[in-house]
């Protein structure tokens, strides 16, 4: 029998290191500690950035089959389809060019009117285009990963939109990539304005898991109809005002609840979109928030 057939290293009888139980206790405590730091204090960003940089080449490799397949798809696409698509885009361009030519004039007029009324100038935002690398694998949340990070000048809390409306908000920035939470995420909320009535409200991600928004805290007799368009109100200092967000699709009014249950469909496509626009957050230009007055409440135990 040739040498090297068997593992000839003697089993380390005496030097086995820590026992599995000790390792279990140590690493469990460490992961709970890290989790606590992550959830409560949000101080684990350097650790995350480190791992993210280490994972970047593997992620790049994992993207390649997708890119290849989309390239093959383009290659195999019918000429007729491509021409049809081009015709549609041309028509869209014509429609938009008319609007765009009017926008310059309207902006000038708006500026003059605002100066006449001595109002503050409207916030102007700039943005950059980023590509969606992948949907976050965590099935509990609705997040996407974008291919631009702090090196490209992406900031935390920048709004993200596509050509139809708001898609989400950047919640975490790594050196090379950044993470955007979609507006349909359960923990995400966005202040909106009803375009028809001007009523303000807050839209939350639908908690049932469907890709919908829920307009909460609207009184049961509030003036709201199906097909109303909701757009950003701009009071939050994150989203620029007037960007379309969602369309009301269903209103349920029940007698036993003060509020109506209003479901809305987001206008920005959350899934299956490849290119998104990351805007600068507008909050920098807003005045500072006024100091909250601390209301002293009598403590429960000492009161009696």
């Amino acid at each position, binding site marked *: 029998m040739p040498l*090297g057939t068997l593992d000839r290293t003697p089993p380390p009888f005496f030097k086995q290191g820590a026992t599995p139980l000790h390792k279990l206790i140590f690493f469990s405590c460490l992961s709970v500690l890290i989790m606590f730091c992550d959830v409560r204090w949000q101080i684990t960003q350097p650790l995350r950035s480190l791992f993210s940089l280490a994972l970047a080449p593997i992620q790049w*490799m994992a993207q390649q089959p997708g890119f290849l397949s989309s390239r093959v798809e383009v290659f195999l696409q019918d000429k007729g389809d491509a021409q049809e698509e081009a015709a549609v885009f041309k028509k869209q361009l014509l429609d938009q060019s008319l609007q765009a030519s009017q926008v310059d004039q309207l902006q000038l007029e708006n500026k003059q009117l605002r100066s006449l009324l001595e109002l503050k100038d409207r916030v102007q935002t700039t943005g950059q285009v980023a590509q969606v690398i992948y949907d976050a694998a965590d099935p509990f949340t609705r997040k996407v990963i974008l291919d631009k990070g702090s090196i490209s000048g992406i900031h935390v809390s920048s709004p993200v939109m596509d050509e139809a409306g708001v898609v989400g908000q950047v919640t975490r920035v790594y050196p090379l990539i950044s993470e955007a939470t979609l507006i349909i995420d359960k923990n995400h909320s966005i202040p909106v304005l009803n375009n028809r009535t001007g009523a303000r409200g807050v839209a939350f991600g639908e908690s049932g898991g469907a890709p919908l928004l829920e307009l909460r805290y609207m009184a049961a007799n509030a003036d709201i109809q199906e097909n109303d368009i909701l757009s950003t109100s701009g009071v939050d200092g994150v989203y620029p005002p007037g960007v379309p967000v969602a369309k009301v699709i269903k209103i349920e009014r029940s007698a036993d609840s003060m509020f109506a249950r209003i479901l809305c469909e987001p206008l920005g496509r959350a899934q299956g979109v490849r290119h998104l626009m990351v805007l600068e957050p507008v909050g920098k230009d807003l005045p500072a928030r006024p100091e909250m007055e601390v209301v002293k409440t009598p403590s429960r135990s000492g009161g009696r």
Partner: protein
Amino acid sequence: MIMPRGQQLLLPAKPLFIVMSLFMALLMNMLENVGLLGNAAWMPDFLALVLLFWSVHQPQRVGIGWAFILGLACDVHQVSFLGQHALAYTVQGFLATLIHRRLLWFSVPSQALQVLPLFAISHAISMVLRMSLSGSLVGWSMFFAPMIEACLWPIVSVILLAPQRRAPDPDENRPL
């Protein structure tokens, strides 16, 4: 090492092959996430599967420490809470060291049945952590993930043991 009767003597495992297989498992996890299926809850976790395989077959080389580090990497990729997968993999690695001497005496299909609870515990830890920290819950489809992983156990056993099953003295009749 005392071997079960009638089993082939295996060649020693190459450390490079172990590292490469873990790397490939991580890549496959990313592939099924990036390219194929998005964020469905029932998707099998290949990294957990390969980690468990090596911590049963090579407990001296792949232990709880590796499980912890790879769990952190998984958390960063999936943008879940940092430490969620790390804790799940750590517990799974510990349970694997508890059963690793016994498990290899069984046939491969009954091994798959015995590792099913380990995968289930690992997924349950993730789920309980998410529920307690953010109050979010995914549907019942999450319970398919450990079952799919256990069904993949025989396939992984064949693939990852193949290099160790090669002939110790290759000649022209038996090149591999």
